[in-house]
């Protein structure tokens, strides 16, 4: 009889193999999995009760140590001494991305409780072209990792398999393991990483060499890769699953991956400044809100909650980031609420997410690339409210900007320099200025548009 792979954690006591006695860090992650394993089956009401207990703790902390919120909370009628009601919570004004951009350090906690550990900072391009800086704590990072692990366990991954990763911020590397949190808890197989800037044809060859069991990347890049592999007859025999994140799932992506490699797509919905928002159901293609980590509202334009099937603005409150509380944060994405899931989990369902959509860049030599826009570099010297890039021709890029002040000649020159370096070709770059950059069809925001030909399943 074939025995299904069942992961036994790594043990910290050599002779005690099973059940394992995991080390401190691994035990913390597993103790959290124990809780997540239980809470996923709670009713929506049971989840809500615990979320409001935690929201109360978060709001109390923000009240005490984040000056930005004191007035907002007071005006909404919040009182740390009494239990938080949904009515009080819904009176709090929404926090827009522009507010976060403008508030800056005023959103940071002045007195982070010790147990939350060190604070880290990051930058994000944002899913609507509105870049911002954010901070998190070791504890919010731990919650992030706990959900990463939940996602692996939900989808019953074989940790012994090989993982290939094509994304930003990585080098071309062969690694011994999948990295944290998976390898903190489990013995994992190797991983290989490839820089996202690599041309699609090169990526395909690399994958052929790597023979991964799992592929992790961005939908726009993977769609092009799948189409390329199918056209070139490149099979990835070992590939069991494609994992996607970072962009809205292209409608044709699941079909393209199925046709090219016979592999299903498992999508994750997260944002750098927020963490995981929703993960694909183990049994369905829709998403479960990660209620243990975020409180989600999907609101109509009049501010009232959407009913299932309706599309509205996604408003997120991460429950455990006390370093930079984001309370009723309007992420900028749109989502459709779903019916309760047939799988039995009480975690609410998001049927569809209208987030960031992207085209690939085409270089004059005809090679296609996922567009790297160098925002990490230009955010250091430019304050941009919103940005969108349009490839007008093989040699020309338009940069649409929403800014408080028109760029100086020097700023333009530096921006052009950064862009040309990160896009990998000395494009002719010109700037246009706008009051606002509207969304595309279906509420999706296109941060890189190519007018050379739109991709889709071919």
């Amino acid at each position, binding site marked *: *009889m074939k025995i299904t792979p069942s992961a036994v954690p790594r043990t910290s006591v050599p*002779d005690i193999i099973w059940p394992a006695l995991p080390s*401190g860090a691994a035990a913390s992650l597993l*103790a959290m999995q124990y809780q997540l*394993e*239980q809470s996923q089956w*709670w009713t929506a009401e049971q989840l809500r009760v615990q979320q409001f207990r935690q929201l109360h703790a978060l709001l109390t902390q923000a009240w005490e140590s984040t000056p930005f919120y004191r007035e907002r909370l007071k005006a909404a009628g919040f009182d740390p001494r009494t239990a938080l009601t949904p009515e009080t919570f819904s009176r709090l004004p929404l926090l827009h991305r522009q507010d976060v951009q403008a508030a800056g350090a005023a959103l940071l906690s002045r007195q982070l409780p010790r*147990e939350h550990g060190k604070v880290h900072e990051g930058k994000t391009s944002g899913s609507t072209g509105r870049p911002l800086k954010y901070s998190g704590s070791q504890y919010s990072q731990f919650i992030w990792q706990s959900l990463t692990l939940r996602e692996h366990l939900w989808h019953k991954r074989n940790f012994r398999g090989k993982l290939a990763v094509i994304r930003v911020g990585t080098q071309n590397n062969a690694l011994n393991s999948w990295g944290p949190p998976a390898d903190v808890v489990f013995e994992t197989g190797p991983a290989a990483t490839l820089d996202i800037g690599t041309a699609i044809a090169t990526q395909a060859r690399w994958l052929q060499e790597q023979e991964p069991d799992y592929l992790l990347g961005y939908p726009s890049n993977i769609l092009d890769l799948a189409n390329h592999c199918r056209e070139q007859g490149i099979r990835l025999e070992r590939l069991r699953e494609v994992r996607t994140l970072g962009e809205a799932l292209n409608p044709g992506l699941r079909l393209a991956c199925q046709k090219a490699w016979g592999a299903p797509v498992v999508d994750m919905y997260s944002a750098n400044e927020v963490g995981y928002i929703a993960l694909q159901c183990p049994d369905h293609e829709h998403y479960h809100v990660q209620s243990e980590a975020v409180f989600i509202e999907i609101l109509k334009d009049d501010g009232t909650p959407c009913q299932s099937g309706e599309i509205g603005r996604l408003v997120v409150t991460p429950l455990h980031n006390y370093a930079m509380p984001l309370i009723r944060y309007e992420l900028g994405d749109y989502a459709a609420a779903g019916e309760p899931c047939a799988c039995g989990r009480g975690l609410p369902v998001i049927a569809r997410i209208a987030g960031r959509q992207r085209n690939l860049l085409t270089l004059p030599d005809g090679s296609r690339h996922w567009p790297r826009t160098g925002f990490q570099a230009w955010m250091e010297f430019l304050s941009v409210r919103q940005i969108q890039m349009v490839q007008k021709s093989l040699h020309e890029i338009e940069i649409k900007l929403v800014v408080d002040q028109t760029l100086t000649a020097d700023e333009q020159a530096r921006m052009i320099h950064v862009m040309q370096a990160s896009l990998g070709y000395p494009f002719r770059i010109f700037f246009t200025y706008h009051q606002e950059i509207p969304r595309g069809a279906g509420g999706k925001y296109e941060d890189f548009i190519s007018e050379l030909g739109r991709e889709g399943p071919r």
Partner: protein
Amino acid sequence: MTGTALPLLPVSSFPSVAWPAMPGASGTAMLALQYQLGQSQWWPPELLRAKQMEQLQALLQHACHTIDFYRERLGAAGYVPGQPLTEAVWQAIPVLTRSEIQRAGDALLSRRIPAAHGRPGEVQTSGSTGQPLKTYGSGITQFFWQVFTLRDHLWQRRDLGGKLAIIRYWPDGSAAPPAGLHLPGWGPSTDAAFHTGPSSVLSIDSSTTQQAEWLLKEKPDYLLTHPTVARALAEHFIEHGFSLPELREVRTLSEALPSDLRALCRQAWGVPVVDMYTTREAGYIALQCPEHTHYHIQSENVLVEVLDASGAPCEPGQTGRVVLTSLHNFAYPLIRYEIGDYAELGEPCPCGRGLPVLTRVMGRVRNMLQLPDGEQRWPLLNYKAYREIVPLRQLQLIQRNSDSIEARLVTERPITADEESRLAEAIRASLGYHFTMNFNYCQEIPRSKGGKFEDFMCEIPVQNIEKT
């Protein structure tokens, strides 16, 4: 209190965070294990067995390297350290009897207990044959004991905020009647991870009347005690028309479960009985299924074999000797240890758990009846029938030889010759043979050291039984 149980929330060591909880180090270790047990309980038997063999491999290797007794014994069975442990080698390892352990004593103690296992701690068992058995556990076996205690709570979905009353062997005198002992929580296994309600303890060497009065005062949600105590209490409550409205469950351990106890507890208090099979020297052996009255072997803690007279594994439906191997005791390994109990192996459980099933745990061979034709069987005493004849407080049957039984009894009043002969008939009927009956009236029939009470004992030496 009734109604749907609230979700069970672990304790948080982070004052600023309400949910999900971040338990302290011991609670974290406990929940990390519960996560694993939550998964492994659903594994197919083959996978459980494979993981057990991996763990046994480590145990046998350690035993060979650090205990001469096992080096010889395992070597003779064909075990070579470092080579994979096969089922054939395993079956060739001789069964370890209690008397062998008694003779070997500290020779079974490892010379080099790995530091991570903690210091060895003595474990004394009362010993059913009157000879106490001394073994050793470690910090790790202690930890696993707590892990399975908690699994039982979680399986049975107990409201840990409720009150737990315990009537058990409590030798230090602190739980003496009438007040007993009052504790703030349920104990370290449970308190490390969850908020618990209070618990109260009464020593088992108290009278049924004292126990009943104590329970009426304590008003517990859960009662943990020996089956014979629970039975005496249930009868007492029925007789006096007392009730325990808060009581939700009777938890039993330490003695074979009498067949009438579940019905009696339903009648007395309207509650179910949840039994467990544990031993001091090997920890949790089997726990009652959350959905049935039979038991699941705790395969993550112990390898349980049920062997027939020839030493071959029993089939479902067969009763045989229980042979245990504690998977994590590296201080004083017990490898294929014949504990002396008999149990009936069951079919796989419809609940879906892959953990093997015991349908019945019978107790010791000395609790077996021997018929004059040599047949041995587990006696089923019919207390209901006996009690319809005489006002019985306690009863113990002792088989002196193949055709006579001594009945020791404690009654509320002297009984008549007619009642005695009718009782003799009822006992003969339930035992299935026309034994010569001798009656012996007592003030009290004491429990053995450790608080166990055995209602049937056969004093025919084991060798004689085996010869017949």
